[in-house]
Structures are given as structure tokens and as C-alpha cells.
């Protein structure tokens, strides 16, 4: 029994979604190999080899993998699938894109976004935007699984797995990468941040979101937003926390001017400590908040900023 984990990275750095996925893979109970696919990814492979519990790192380093096209990734992984009982990837936009393609080519089901491993063939996964949890048993000999990484702690460091190179797989030539427009930020990424401060429609404008920046800088936090704030055009889409955006589970989540629509709660309700600041005391966000402050955000946010300043943050 061996499990193959597909590493998530941006060519230079291994994303910590990988170490979390390794934790899920370890629970399935077999040896864990990590596959790093990319172009010029020695540093990523090195980092993957240090994850606890990884028996081997396999590297497919080729110019055709400079951008992760689903068609190319699936062809490579399917070619390697013979040696594995389970193929596991984080449920990032890359994993969600190519993994069902792998499953279909292997003629098996995909088990999407597992949040728990009951046994080697039985898994828990959220349905209805997390409003119910389904326990499913796979009848397939080979399992194709994506992992909701917020549900698993990152595997530790200290491993020293061997690194092995493999040749590139087929390049079906069906699609090509044209360009990317990534939001640049010095702050931590939403999905890995320990603290997140998010704004909702109550922020009233994109300019007002800058009020959150100063607090985010003091706390080393990422800045997020509700779908309402994104739809209103206050901030770009990649700020979105929620069922249709990013699912996060930081140590501290501060929701500012967010009413708490089901779709937003689905994306953040597993945070350890939730703070809500909203002037409407009936707002549903208060039903999940550990600490609720009924106040006008336009006075509370500058006050919070000042209080944190007093702590020397």
C-alpha cells in the first residue's frame, strides 16, 4: 500500500497545504510518496523531503510543467498511478482542476475535500456548504482524494526522504498558458495565515478597507472579505472567504461589518477564535462569534488599531 501526495507549490516555495495533505495521507495508513511537478523545482523537492512521514519524493522537472495545466498533470499522474492505492492532493484550485481528470481516466470516483479519515477506505466530507457531513466508503481499488487542508494540522519537519527524478509524461497539447494576474501582497496568504481580518458590505467602499490594513500589519494578519464586499467591487475576488471563495481556519478570525450569510460562515466557521464587529446586534455572525462587539465599525476599527498599538504591536 502506497499513497501518492501531489505537492502544491509556486516553483520557488512549497505551499504548507502539502504538509497538511501529508497528514491526511498518513492517516490512510500507507507509505507516503510526494510528487513534485514543475520546472526548476529543486528547492521545492528539497523542502518536501523534509516533511515528517514522507518515504520518498518524486520529481518531474520539465519545462512543460512551468505552469500547472490540468491536461499535462493528469497525464503524468495517471501514468504513475499503477504503483499507488491512493492519490491525494490538496483541494486548492490546482488540485480541484486536475484531480477529477485523473479519477475519470482511472475510471474511479473522486472523493472531494475530505475533512476526516475514518479508515483507509472511509472518509468524511462536507456537503451543502458544510451544513451537513457525509461519511462515504469507497469501493474503488484506487482512491482519488482531495483534502480540505484546513481540517488537518501540518505534518512536522525532520524527515529526510530520498529524492528521485522521473521523466515528464505526455503533453496532450490541448491547452496553453497565456498569462496570470496575481494579486501582490506582503501579507500572509489567506489559507495559511494565523490571523485574518475580513471586511464585509458594511465597509461601504474599497478605500475603507485600508482601515483594516493597519490592524493586519500589527497582527501579521491576512486581509479577507465576504462575497458581498467582493461583489460590490470593494476588493478583488481572491480576498473572498466563503463557500465559493477560500475556506480558512485561522487561530483568530476578525469579521468586520460582515452580517454572516451561510455562504460566508461555511468558509470560516472552523476558525479557533472568531470576533465579530457589527452594528446590527441581530446579525447572524454573532451566533458563531466567541466575542461579539455591537458597534459602528467606523469608530471600533480605529479604536482597535489604537488599543493594539498600546500593546506595542
Amino acid at each position, binding site marked *: 500500500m502506497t499513497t501518492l501526495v501531489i505537492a502544491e507549490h*509556486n516553483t520557488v516555495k512549497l505551499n504548507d497545504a502539502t504538509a497538511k495533505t501529508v497528514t491526511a495521507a498518513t492517516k490512510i495508513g500507507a507509505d507516503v510518496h510526494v510528487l513534485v511537478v514543475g520546472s526548476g523545482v529543486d528547492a521545492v523537492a528539497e523542502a518536501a523531503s523534509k516533511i515528517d512521514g514522507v518515504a520518498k519524493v518524486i520529481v518531474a522537472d520539465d519545462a512543460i510543467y512551468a505552469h500547472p495545466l*490540468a491536461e499535462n498533470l*493528469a497525464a503524468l499522474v495517471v501514468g504513475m498511478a499503477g504503483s499507488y492505492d491512493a492519490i491525494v492532493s490538496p483541494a486548492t*484550485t490546482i488540485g*480541484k*482542476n486536475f*484531480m*477529477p*481528470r*485523473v*479519477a*475519470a481516466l482511472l475510471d*474511479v*470516483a*473522486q*472523493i*472531494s475535500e475530505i475533512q476526516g479519515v475514518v479508515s483507509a477506505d*472511509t472518509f468524511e466530507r*462536507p*456537503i*451543502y456548504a458544510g*451544513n*451537513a*457531513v*457525509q*461519511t*462515504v466508503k469507497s*469501493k*474503488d481499488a484506487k482512491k482519488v482524494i482531495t483534502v480540505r487542508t484546513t481540517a488537518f494540522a501540518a505534518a512536522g519537519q525532520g524527515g529526510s526522504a530520498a529524492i528521485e527524478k522521473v521523466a515528464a509524461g505526455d503533453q496532450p497539447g*490541448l*491547452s*496553453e498558458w*497565456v498569462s*496570470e*494576474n*496575481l494579486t501582490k501582497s506582503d501579507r500572509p496568504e489567506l*489559507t495559511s495565515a494565523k*490571523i485574518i481580518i475580513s471586511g464585509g458590505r458594511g465597509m461601504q467602499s474599497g478605500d475603507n478597507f485600508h482601515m483594516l490594513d493597519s490592524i493586519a500589519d500589527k497582527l501579521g494578519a491576512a486581509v479577507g472579505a465576504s*462575497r458581498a464586499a467582493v461583489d460590490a467591487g470593494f476588493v*478583488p*475576488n*481572491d480576498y473572498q472567504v466563503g463557500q*465559493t471563495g477560500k475556506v480558512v481556519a485561522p487561530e*483568530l478570525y476578525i469579521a468586520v461589518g460582515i452580517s454572516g450569510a*451561510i455562504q460566508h460562515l461555511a468558509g470560516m*466557521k472552523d476558525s*479557533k477564535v472568531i470576533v465579530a464587529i457589527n452594528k446590527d*446586534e441581530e446579525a447572524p455572525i*454573532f451566533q*458563531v*462569534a466567541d*466575542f461579539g*462587539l455591537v*458597534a459602528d465599525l467606523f469608530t*471600533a476599527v480605529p*479604536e*482597535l488599531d489604537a488599543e*493594539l498599538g498600546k*500593546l506595542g*504591536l
Partner: protein
Amino acid sequence: MKVIVPIKRVVDYNVKIRVKSDQTGVDLANVKMSMNPFDEIAIEEAVRLKEAGKITEVIAVSIGAAQATETIRTALAMGADRGILVKTDEMVEPINVAKILKAIIDAEKPDLAILGKQAIDDDCNQTGQMLAALLGWPQGTFASKVEFDGDKLLLTREIDGGLQTLKLNMPAVITTDLRLNEPRYASLPNIMKAKKKPIDEKTPEDYGVTIKTHLEVLKVTEPPVRSAGIKVESVEQLVAKLKEAGVIG
């Protein structure tokens, strides 16, 4: 040029679902059902491509119980030309849906398939990618913009860090994300017209597909409930509580 748009009948997104007490599933009795919102976006995109003269026919396909006919009628009222209902009372997993859709596509030979990126009931996010794999077509998932570039597609998609643009050969599979468009409401005259549009009724067997169960649902449970905490009176108190909880400073 034809487009196929598969659509799914799901619990309306405004309904607060209830898990059955025997843990066999979610209670669907007397619950409002609607077209999956991502599929509405798919229909809208196909109809807009037709209105722009890029394509000539939009075929809406649904796989499910007889009531899925209503969902197809909604698509026809939005502007789809005809419908296909593949009738089955079984639960059809995405891999089986993809096989049925592949068989329909082999028969209909469309140039594009546009699907919602995921259904809001099982949240699988698989069918479009699986269909593309079975057909050997390229896939443009989570699309926020679709343009034609000669005989290829320029497709902008939502990825974790922002946006990505791909060039896809045709035929291709597209799956829709929220920002692709805002679906229209069907007008009364169009709802009336939709009643006259044809819907073919088929079965999975007609397409030579045997539905195989890959996953057995052992139980469906409520998620752990998060209990509401306390209200604080001031920002000062809030900061003190957060320090106490050890999450700041």
C-alpha cells in the same frame, strides 16, 4: 456550432437544509428545488454566445428524476433551444454523469460543453473535469471570462492567487465560476414559449451506460455546532479577552 449545457436540480440555495434524524441523508420532502446556481450561469453564458451570433444552438441536458423536466423548462425559458432529460431515480455519481454526458456528446457533436463548476448539494466539483478527460478535450474550469480567438478559446479563470488566462483548443469543456455573468430572469412570454420547445426523454441505458456505484454513503450527520460566545462592551474589553485567549500579543 452547438453548445451542450448540463444542468442539475438541487435544493434551492436559500433553503436551510435539515439532516434526517436517521442519518440517511438530507430531508428533501417539501423542499423548494431550483436549478443549481452555477448551472444557471452556464445556461446564461451559452445563451449570450448565441445572442452574439457565435453559436447556433443551446441544448440543456439534465439527468435525474422526472421533476428535472421543470429545471429543463427553466433553461428553455432562459433561451436554450431544446432539452434532453435522462431519466433515472438512482443517485448518479459525477463519474457516471460524465459517462452519460460523453455518450450524449458523441451523438450530438457539440463544439462546447458549459457546466457549472459544482453543484451546491454534493459540492463535488468534478463533472466538467471528468467529462473533459473522457472526451480527451481541454478544460477551462472556474471561468470568469470566455472569448473566442479564431478557432480557439481564450478563457480567464479564477485561481487561488488571482486570475489566469488559458488558450484552449476546440472542442472544449468550460466550467463556470460566479463572476462569469449574472443570469437573467425568464420573462413571461419566454416561459410560455419554452412550453413548446422539445424535450427528449431518454434513459442511461439508451446511451449504453450502466450506472456503477463507486461510493457508498454510510451516513449524513449535522456538523458540530459552534456555540455563540459572549458580547463584549468595548474594544478595550475585546482586546483584553483576546489576550486572555492567547491569540494576540
